[in-house]
C-alpha cells in the first residue's frame, strides 16, 4: 500500500498538491526535490500536536517506524562483545519501544503537563534529530559517515558508520542511537573497533529526493509538523509564535538548527516537566560547544600563509646575509 502510494505520486502532482496545501499551513519541500539546492527546515507547532490520543502510538511515530524498520539490518548472532568495555546495545528485540529514541524508533512524543500563567497545559512534543546548521555529530565524524546534506538534512550512512557513538557524545541532545551487531565494523575488527551503527532521523532523505514529505510530517493528522524552504518556515514560526504569544525552540540552539518548535509555554518550563534520560532529550537552551574550537580552527587555516611569509622573510634575510658576507670576503681578498 505504502509502495503504491510512493509510485502514485509524481513530482508534478506533488508540487501541485503542495501549492494547494500552503493555505492550510503546510509548506512543501520544493527546495528539497533533488537533495541539493536551498535547504529546508521543519516546524513543529506544539499548540497543534495532541499526541494522538486514542492511538497506541502517535501517528508520526507509527509512520516513522513503518518507513524505517523494514530497512533495518538484522544483527549478527551472537553480537561480538567489544573489548575492553563489554557494552552491547541491542534494540532488535525491543523494536516496539516507542517512548524514547532507539534505532527502531527515531521519533517519539514527550508529554508535559504544566501550569503557565494560571492555566494548565498538556503539551505533546515530538522529539527527533534537530538537523543542526553546523552539527558537530556530522563534521567531527571520523569517517564522514554522518553528513549534513545541502538540503539541510543530517544523514548517517549506515554502510560507513562504525558505531563508535562519537556523534551521540557530541550531540547536545544525545539523539543518535546505537544498534550493535550490524554494519561495517563486523568486517574489520569487531571486538576492537566500532560497535554497530548509529541511527537517527534522516528527515526521510530518500523521500525528500523523490519529492515526498517525511513520513512523520505526512502522517500527522493535525498538521502539527510542517516542512518547507527554510526562510518560509522560519517566517511561519515567527508568525505563529507572535499569534499565540508563544516561544520558539531550535532557532538559536546549538548555533541554529533546521527544526523550530513553537509553543505557547516557555521551553524552560517544558524542560522541567518532561521525562529526561537516555534517549529522552530535554528542552533546555543549548549553546554550540564547537564554538570553542572555531578560533584555533581559523588560526589553522591561516597557518600556511604565516609559514609562507616566515619562509620568505627568512630566506631573503639569509640570502642577503650571504651576499654581504661574500662581498666582504671579496673586498678582503682584493
Amino acid at each position, binding site marked *: 500500500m505504502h509502495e503504491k502510494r510512493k509510485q502514485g505520486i509524481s513530482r508534478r502532482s506533488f508540487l501541485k498538491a503542495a501549492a494547494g496545501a500552503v493555505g492550510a499551513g503546510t509548506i512543501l519541500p520544493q527546495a528539497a526535490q533533488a537533495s541539493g539546492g536551498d*535547504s529546508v527546515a521543519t516546524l513543529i507547532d506544539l499548540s497543534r500536536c495532541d499526541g494522538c490520543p486514542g492511538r497506541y502510538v502517535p501517528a508520526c511515530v507509527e509512520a516513522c517506524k513503518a518507513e524505517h524498520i523494514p530497512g533495518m539490518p538484522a544483527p549478527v548472532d551472537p553480537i561480538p562483545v*567489544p573489548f*575492553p*568495555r563489554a557494552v552491547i546495545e541491542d534494540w532488535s528485540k525491543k523494536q516496539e519501544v516507542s517512548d524514547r529514541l532507539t534505532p527502531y524508533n527515531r521519533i517519539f512524543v514527550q508529554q508535559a503537563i504544566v501550569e503557565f500563567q494560571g492555566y494548565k497545559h498538556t503539551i505533546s512534543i515530538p522529539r527527533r534529530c534537530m538537523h543542526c*546548521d*553546523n*552539527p*558537530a555529530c*556530522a*563534521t*567531527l565524524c*571520523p*569517517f*564522514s559517515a554522518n*553528513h*549534513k*546534506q*545541502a538540503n*539541510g538534512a543530517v544523514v548517517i550512512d549506515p554502510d560507513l558508520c562504525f558505531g*563508535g*557513538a*562519537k556523534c551521540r*557524545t*557530541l550531540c547536545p541532545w544525545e539523539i543518535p542511537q546505537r544498534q550493535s551487531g550490524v554494519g561495517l565494523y563486523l568486517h574489520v575488527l569487531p571486538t576492537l*573497533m566500532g560497535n554497530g551503527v548509529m541511527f537517527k532521523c534522516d528527515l526521510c532523505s530518500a523521500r525528500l529526493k523523490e519529492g515526498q514529505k517525511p513520513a512523520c510530517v505526512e502522517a500527522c493528522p493535525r498538521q502539527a509538523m510542517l516542512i518547507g524552504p527554510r526562510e518560509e518556515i522560519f517566517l511561519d514560526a515567527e508568525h505563529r509564535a507572535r499569534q499565540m504569544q508563544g516561544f520558539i525552540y531550535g532557532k538559536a540552539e546549538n548555533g541554529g538548527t533546521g527544526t523550530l518548535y513553537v509553543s505557547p509555554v516557555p521551553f524552560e518550563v517544558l524542560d522541567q516537566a518532561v521525562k529526561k534520560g537516555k534517549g529522552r532529550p530535554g528542552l533546555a537552551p543549548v549553546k554550540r*560547544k*564547537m564554538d*570553542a*574550537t*572555531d578560533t*584555533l*580552527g*581559523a*588560526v*589553522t*587555516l591561516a*597557518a*600556511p600563509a*604565516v*609559514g*609562507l611569509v*616566515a*619562509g*620568505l622573510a*627568512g*630566506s*631573503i634575510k*639569509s*640570502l642577503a646575509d*650571504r651576499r654581504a*658576507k661574500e662581498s666582504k670576503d671579496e673586498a678582503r681578498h682584493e
Partner: protein
Amino acid sequence: MRRAMSKPQPMKSVLVVRHHLIELIEHWAIAISGLALFFSGMFELPMANRYYVTSLPGLGWSGDFLVSLNVHYAAAVVFIIACVFHVVYHGLKHETGMLPRKGDLKQSVEVIKTFFGKGEEPPFAKYLPEQRLAYVGMAVVIAFLIFTGLFKTWKNILAPDMNLTLVLWATWLHNLFFIMFFLAFLAHMAAIILKPNRPMVRGIFTGRVRRDYAEHRHPLWIRDLEGPQAPRPEPAPQAAAQDSVQEDEPGKTAPQEAAEPDVKG
C-alpha cells in the same frame, strides 16, 4: 691519539656542523607537533574512553573530543607553519640536497644490504640515498595530511554541508595518510636503531656530528664542505671526539659558512 701526537692537526675540530639552528628548529617543531597531531588525531576516534586512556594520569582530557580537537588544531598550526617555512626557506635558497637523485633507488637497496653484512657502503654525500627517498615519501604524506586537514577544518567551521564526495575523499585520504605517517615515523625510528646510522642521532639534537664519522661515511659531503682544493681529511682521533666540542674549522672558510651550501651536493 698516537697519530695526533705524531702529526698535530692545526685546530682540526672533532665535530662538524651537520644541521644549523634553523634546521633543528624546523625538525623538532615538525616532530613534536607531528606527534601531538598523531595522538590528538587518535583521540578524535572514539577510543580514549573505551580503552581507559582517560584513566591515565594527565590524559583525562583525551576523552573530550573538543579538547582533543583544540590540541589537534594547535599542533596543526605549528606543524603547518614549520612545513611551509621549510619548503619556502630552503626552496628559495636552492638547498636541494635532500631531494632524490638519479640512481637513489638502486643505491638504497645496496646500502640496505650492507646493514645486513652484504657488501660495503659507497662514499656518501651529506644525506644517504634512502634518506633522500624517505624525505620525499614523508613530504608527500605530510602534504596530503595538510591539504586534507585544512579542507576538513574549512568544513568544520564554514561549510558543514559541502559536497559529500569531496568530504569523503578528504576524510579517507586524511585517515589513510595518518596511518602512513605513523608507519613513516616507525621507519624513521627504526633507521636510527641501525648501528651505522647512530652517530647521526647526535646531529639532530646538537646540530653536530663527529668529524671522524663524517669523514668516514660522508666523504663527499666533507669534500664539498671544505672545497674541492682541500686535501682528503684524515680520520680524527676517536678519543678526542668523546668530550671536546670544538668549533669546526675546515679548509679555507669558517665552519658555519662552510656548512652553508652543503645541501647542494
